[in-house]
């Protein structure tokens, strides 16, 4: 695998270099040349100017929360406290997380572009996440040691794995996990930290290279790095996450890796990485046109990751249910539920709009669950295909490409 990886990387590097040099002809006397490094390494005065520790912290907090959603000894207050952590509270197993002043909840549905003027949806979305925690504790935990059946929560087998589902067939830990990819990571990246609405505020300071007090970076550099951190903040090599893409968290990194692994989308991980890198280099070079171009590329590609996985799980779930594999089907559709939920945080390039609005997402989720009184126990192949087609129609891929 890894050997294969180097060839396209080398090719892309060559292409990037040649396209840079051709660009130079036209913009040579308009401003400084962009110095695009080989990996995500940026320095000032001999020291790194990159910092996204706050994003790494939140990803690690989120990991502990989804683990807690599989621990039936916990109550809702405990898990909600992890979600809305306050500095110094003994919420996590990792002491550094406990000491942190960061919180997952405060950055959920909290982007500048989508939520600074929409406290209503923000509150509704946060209530969804808290509701999933409550359902897990109230409905599923009491039935942890019992078999599930239509309308009744409990265990169900999925291959060698055991899944714990609500009476409607949903795994709340999966719903929470996959919805958080949109509500936290995608929203913060696409609608906040790479958004010109946010970054343009720091243009004068960036032009004069005014550093944040006591730091080695400008505000604009730091914002861009924070966007990078939500995708790659737990990578083994923070400067080049590509070799381990997909293995470094349970959230966006993982699913960039999964989509990369589908030969129909191979190359997307590198495309995302290159856009992050060139955008950061453009900020150093004070070239905000190139920065914004990279932002639009990130919006398209990261939104596509969410769209592909939504369709993928709908189709996988359909295939499993058609083979009477209920446990496998419910697991896939629980993941699909979260990816559909995440679609409301995507961003169409060169627009202010998501690929699907909150109302459209809510309607799709209602469709998924309303073929009968017991939700996924009753869902039909026709419904799953219809939802898949609806989603794929808004993107540049087909159901068949995403579905396997």
């Amino acid at each position: 695998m890894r050997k294969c990886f180097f060839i396209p990387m080398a090719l892309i590097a060559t292409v990037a270099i040649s396209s840079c040099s051709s660009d130079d002809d036209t913009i040579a006397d308009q401003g400084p040349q962009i110095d695009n490094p080989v990996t995500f390494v940026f320095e000032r005065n001999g020291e790194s100017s990159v910092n996204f520790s706050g994003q790494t912290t939140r990803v690690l907090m989120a990991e502990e929360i989804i683990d807690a959603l599989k621990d039936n000894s916990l109550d809702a207050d405990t898990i909600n406290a992890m979600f809305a952590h306050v500095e110094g509270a003994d919420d996590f197993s990792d002491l550094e997380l406990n000491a942190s002043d960061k919180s997952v909840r405060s950055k959920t549905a909290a982007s500048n572009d989508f939520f600074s003027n929409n406290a209503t949806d923000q509150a509704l979305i946060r209530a969804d996440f808290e509701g999933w925690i409550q359902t897990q504790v109230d409905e599923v935990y009491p039935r942890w040691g019992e078999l599930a059946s239509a309308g009744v929560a409990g265990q169900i087998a999925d291959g060698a794995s055991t899944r714990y589902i609500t009476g409607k067939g949903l795994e709340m830990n999966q719903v929470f996990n996959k919805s958080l990819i949109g509500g936290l990571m995608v929203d913060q990246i696409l609608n906040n930290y790479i958004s010109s609405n946010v970054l343009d505020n720091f243009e004068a300071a960036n032009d004069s290279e005014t550093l944040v007090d006591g730091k080695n970076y400008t505000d604009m550099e730091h914002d861009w790095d924070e966007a990078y951190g939500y995708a790659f903040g737990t990578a083994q090599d923070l400067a080049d996450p590509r070799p381990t893409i997909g293995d470094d968290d349970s959230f966006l990194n993982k699913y960039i890796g999964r989509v990369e692994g589908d030969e129909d989308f191979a190359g997307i991980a590198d495309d995302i990485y290159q856009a992050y890198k060139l955008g950061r280099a453009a900020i150093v070079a004070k070239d905000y046109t190139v920065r914004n171009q990279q932002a639009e590329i990130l919006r398209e590609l990261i939104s596509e990751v969410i769209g592909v996985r939504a369709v993928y799980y709908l189709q996988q779930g359909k295939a499993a249910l058609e083979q009477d594999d209920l446990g496998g089907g419910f697991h896939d559709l629980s993941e699909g539920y979260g990816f559909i939920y995440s679609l409301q945080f995507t961003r169409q390039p060169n627009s202010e709009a998501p690929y699907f609005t909150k109302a459209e997402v809510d309607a799709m989720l209602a469709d998924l669950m309303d073929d009968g009184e017991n939700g996924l126990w009753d869902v039909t192949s026709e419904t799953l295909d219809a939802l898949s087609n609806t989603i794929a129609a808004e993107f540049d891929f087909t159901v068949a490409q995403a579905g396997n």
Partner: protein
Amino acid sequence: MKKLLALNVVVFFIFACSSSDDSDPTPAAFDRGVMLANWADNIIIPSYEAFSLSLDDLEAAFGNFNTTTDQTNLDALRAAWLEAYMAWQYVSMFETGPAETIGYRSQMNTYPTDVQLILDNITNGGYDFALPSNRDSKGFPALDYLLYGSDSDTAIVDAFDTARLAYVQDIIDDMQANTDQVLSEWNTTYRDAFVNDDGSSASASTDRMVNDLIFYYEKFLRAGKIGIPAGVFSSTQEPTTLEAYYNGEVSNELFQEGLQAVQDFFNGKHFGSSTTGESLSSYLATLEQQSLRDDINAQLTTSRTAIESLDFFRVELETNNPAVDMLAAYDELQKVVPLLKVDMVSAMSIRIDFVDADGD
């Protein structure tokens, strides 16, 4: 996508050949129903029956151990466990029909077993073996731990108090109940349903069994018994994930038996006999794919030879890192996968209906 495309190309290619070669005789039609009957009557049902008898022997050996809990009866119980575990290797691949419905393989042989869960169950009682979450606390792997999970045989015998004896009885009862259910369905309704569904749709018996066979070969034989313990899918070797880890000396023969069972099935060899009937092998011959048939048999034999030269798997993994000889054997096993999963299914116009697991 690419898989589908490849299949279409192959189909088109075959079609093009046969239409342009009007003068040549077209390959004789292969009767899938005859093959299905051979599978059901001469391989699958006899294998389940033999396995069921081996469980009866296991139960009898445990009865003696339960009455007189001593070293002699422990040795006999262990021998019966191994006999049954070997017989299991001939039925594990048939996860179709009634076995698929109850998740038979995972009920019987989920490993690594969860030692803490076993000990909690014994201490607390009240366990329900029908729960999916108890699959790693029962079956052959739980017996492996209970019969071999200490360096000292004396300690093992001494640990068998009333609760532990009852636990083993419950495990054996559960294994027998599941096996009875699968076998009785084959003997009553499922045999005819299986044999009569002799078409070539994705849900027809041949298509499903071929998918189940390849899935078994790839996930349970190749990966489960060798690849996962040898660290092919992880950053480190994982010897504790070996089948029969606590025994430590029979993982190889259990694997070899499983590989033999796959090859016998491929060749349509009747259970417990050297007679052969219609099979995937003869199907390939009918399709004028003799060289593919021979390649598959040759590669299976090469794999077996590569395994034969290995020390006990547990010793290999605890002595060598990386265990290069074991990895080399794995590579030979892997070479069978494309022959079955690409070449054979293309020739038979069977579509692979499973994908690599997502891993979460």
